[in-house]
């Protein structure tokens, strides 16, 4: 998540982009990778996202998440799909205990490529966008203020609760509560750590509801306005429409492929 003041990310070309554009690209490009039966396509998209990540000043964390997710799942699925996929007909390697099938491997590549495309698109959206701007943009296109509240409040409340739990954890271990030892002992530490956080947050919830009510949360008729603004430049529009066209083309190609007029993959 990006704070409102992380200028080194927000003031980049990717950071300045309209949040809806980024969300639309992540969605349309991801869906394109999903529906087209081309196993390498997702990897091409992911490679392109590397350029966007570099432009957005987040290349290092981006590369880290792509590889730390991509490598284990590739190996895991290579094993499961490669050896045990029901699709397997053409076997390319005999390892003794099982045979590696070409169809399973291609299926695995398609799955991993699609996942990486979605991961990359959403990660860039999430890491280069101030979330208040995203919600303001979604409100502009008709999302309910209640949904906006739930999104923003969840993103703000959860880290706060986690900090509070760490605080309690430190206090409890200073008072001698063991957080080590056998599984049963460690489990016994669970309740005194979680209990206070849970009960105090429930009373907090009631007071926060009071705050919302006295700040006009219950108003339905009004149009909701926003202090945060979004620009929608011609470039933003061009990129968004480009992604949408890509997806439409992908749908057409998939249908044509399905009825046998053309053959892809």
């Amino acid at each position: 998540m990006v704070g409102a003041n992380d200028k080194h990310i927000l003031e980049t070309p990717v950071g300045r982009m309209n949040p809806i554009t980024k969300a639309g690209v992540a969605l349309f490009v991801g869906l394109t990778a999903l529906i087209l039966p081309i196993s390498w396509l997702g990897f091409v998209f992911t490679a392109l996202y590397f350029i966007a990540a570099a432009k957005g000043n987040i290349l290092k964390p981006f590369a880290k998440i792509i590889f730390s997710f991509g490598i284990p799942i590739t190996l895991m699925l290579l094993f499961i799909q490669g050896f045990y996929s029901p699709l397997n007909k053409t076997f390319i390697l005999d390892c003794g205990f099982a045979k590696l099938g070409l169809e399973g491997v291609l299926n695995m590549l398609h799955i991993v490529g699609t996942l990486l495309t979605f991961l990359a698109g959403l990660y860039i959206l999430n890491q280069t966008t101030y979330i208040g701007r995203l919600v303001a943009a979604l409100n502009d296109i008709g999302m309910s203020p209640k949904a906006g509240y739930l999104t923003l409040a969840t993103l703000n409340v959860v880290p706060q609760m986690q900090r509070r739990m760490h605080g309690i954890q430190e206090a409890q271990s200073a008072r001698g509560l063991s957080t080590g030892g056998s599984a049963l002992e460690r489990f016994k530490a669970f309740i005194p750590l979680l209990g206070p956080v849970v009960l105090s947050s429930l009373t907090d919830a009631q007071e926060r509801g009071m705050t919302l009510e006295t700040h006009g949360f219950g108003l339905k008729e009004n149009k909701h306005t926003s202090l945060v603004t979004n620009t929608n430049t011609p470039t933003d529009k061009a990129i968004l429409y480009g992604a949408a066209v890509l997806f439409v083309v992908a749908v057409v190609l998939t249908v044509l492929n399905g009825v046998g007029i053309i053959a892809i993959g």
Partner: protein
Amino acid sequence: MAEEVIRVEDFSFKYRQTKKYALKHLDFAIKKGEFVCVIGQNGSGKSTLASALVGLVPQYFVGNLHGRILIEGHDTQHTSISELSTMIGLVFQNPFNQLSYTAGTVAEELAYGLCNHGVPREEMVERVDRIARIMRIDHIIDKNPLELSGGQVQRVALGSSLIMEPEIVVLDECTTQLDPMGSEEIFDIVKNLNADGMTVVMADHDMERVARCADCVIVLDRGEIVAQGSPNEVFSQPDLREHGVEPPDFLKIALALKEAGVKVDRLPVTEEPTIELVKEAIHS
């Protein structure tokens, strides 16, 4: 004669599925520009009264209700809490529970109510600037509210209530969780607001402060008004301690002087007159 802005008429309230009434037969009125303090021990009904004044009781907290409360002539039962918020603001104890949790900056937090009310952005910017200056938070306007100190957050909370431009503000022990500096700063702002004509209803534990600035004091005990009047009238009542209220120290000094045989013709509850009284006692 100033107009009445709050009118409480034989008001009683009981939270759903509780045994006892939290407020019983309250009946009083508050005039425009008055500084009214509500005192009483924990559980005496101060917070329930605060909630009732802004409409949270009975619109948010449900239960059984009798009588009515009028805010600038509007019945709190039949006027939405949102509409009431443009007439009467509320600030309560825990600063962090008065954040909307939707804002990444203090400016957005201040603007939250305005967004919900659909106030145009240009006006929003203007009001945010003005309130930030009054609340002395203009230097932290771009900070994340969740990273501020309790005192700063409480000023943000007060600001986000006052940005709706109510003419009455209810403060329910809003300085209890703050350090002395943060507490004094809030209080100073409230005093200025009152001097500019805002009506203030404040529940507080600091009796010196109550004695110093209240025009009128209301004492609650187990949901009932047991004393009401000017600080001097209320604090000089002998049975105050039975209702869980400890009178200000200055009053105790005066009473001690009286007991010691010094002629005391008045019972001061604030600093200056007490000093005068002690000086007189020394000279006589």
